[in-house]
């Protein structure tokens, strides 16, 4: 499937009738398109999930869930939004479901990410990981909608218009969320810098 293996399987499957041949072709096309999406976005998905509140230990599981949703959704993707914003939407929904499940299980997601960054790491890398841990802690205290807007705008560099497209809501809403999130994160990073996490 990924990396062309499923494409090969689909192409080699014996087609005994016209409908089956058509189905095989469709499957092959779907696999090919999915390969392309995976190559282009796998690194991004793995990067963004922790910022959206996914614990390190669960990142691969959630990333797999995202790409399975992509695989299922690709045949019906109509191109009304860009592939990128569509994929962002899937990530957001998957993370929302994940966090809801974790909440029901009373799991603490942030503590683990923060602990993972406290391991002894030399120099600049340590500083970056500590900064990232502080950011994750600040993001964890935001309401989910604010958190997503902050991550998409400040880290993923999506414009307000693109984020409004992801959420299917007004730009005013996005600006309002960005305003609240930015101010909250600034305050918490200042607290953290002063030793008051």
């Amino acid at each position: 499937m990924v990396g062309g293996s499923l494409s090969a399987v689909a192409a080699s499957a014996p087609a005994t009738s016209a409908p089956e041949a058509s189905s095989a072709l469709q499957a092959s096309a779907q696999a090919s398109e999915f390969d392309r999406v995976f190559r282009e976005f796998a690194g991004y998905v793995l990067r963004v999930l922790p910022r959206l509140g996914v614990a390190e230990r669960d990142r691969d599981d959630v990333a797999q869930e995202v790409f399975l949703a992509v695989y299922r959704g690709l045949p019906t993707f109509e191109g009304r939004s860009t592939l990128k914003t569509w994929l962002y939407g899937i990530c957001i929904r998957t993370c929302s479901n994940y966090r809801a499940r974790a909440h029901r299980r009373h799991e603490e997601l942030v503590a683990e990410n923060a602990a993972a960054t406290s391991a002894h790491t030399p120099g600049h890398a340590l500083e970056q990981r500590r900064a990232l841990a502080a950011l994750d802690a600040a993001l964890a205290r935001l309401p989910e909608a604010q958190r997503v807007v902050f991550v998409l705008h400040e880290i993923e560099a999506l414009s307000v218009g693109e984020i409004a497209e992801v959420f299917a809501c007004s730009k005013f809403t996005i600006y309002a969320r960005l305003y609240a999130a930015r101010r909250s994160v600034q305050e918490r990073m200042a607290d953290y810098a002063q030793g008051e996490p």
Partner: protein
Amino acid sequence: MTDQGSRLLKHALHAARDATGSAQDVERLRRRLDATLANGSAPAAASSVPQPAAAGLFSKTSLWIVGAAVGLGGSMFLLSQQPRAARSVVLPPAASAAQSVVVAEQPVPRALPVGRDPSASPESEPMPARGSQVQPSVDQQVRRPTRIAGKVAPPQRSTSSEVAVDPAAEVELITRAQALVRAQPAQALALLLEHERGFAHGILVQERETLRIDAERALGQNARAREHARAFIAAFPTSPQTPGLKQWLAAQQSAATHHNPTSAPVLTP
């Protein structure tokens, strides 16, 4: 936010943007997906795929929540959003009308205004925060420009400027400017100027400055737009908008060089 906090946030955002799944991580995910899909076990329920109806419901709910938070929950929101140093300001009842300096416990560094001399930027008369405990009369005494010997003294720059901010008003101005920036860039610029007066160091300064550049470009004021773009890049080097502005400046320089190869470059390196 303190300088330390600002630096920490810049570090964190830089690290977050640079972070990516390693080749090993991607390969591991690839193998997992291969195994899952080869077994034909891709779950059928596509709960993670955005559905238009669900998105619409989410949108309406979000609008209602944000509307309640920004509009109706004003007092609590405003108080909770004030910079810490600003919140701690206590104005003495006996403050002289001639003294227009607000003393904060510590300075509250703000994002730099771009392309303007901050000291020359007129301070607005901030609206009192709803629910604020500050006495209105004192509030006015310390913030309004004072008349000394028949002249209006220039508003002094407060170290805790914009103690009373109105998030909804700031958001509204930027949203309106954004809506007008392509079709009516002159009106958009007027709104951005209004924002600059009222929220010189607001939370949405970066958005204001990028909209200003867009409006100037739409008006064909490319020289001013370039000037503001350079100032933005200098003030916000880690902003997500900075790479795009750098690209635009480079394209402008390239076009200028192509148009007149013998002329000096438009942009300084």
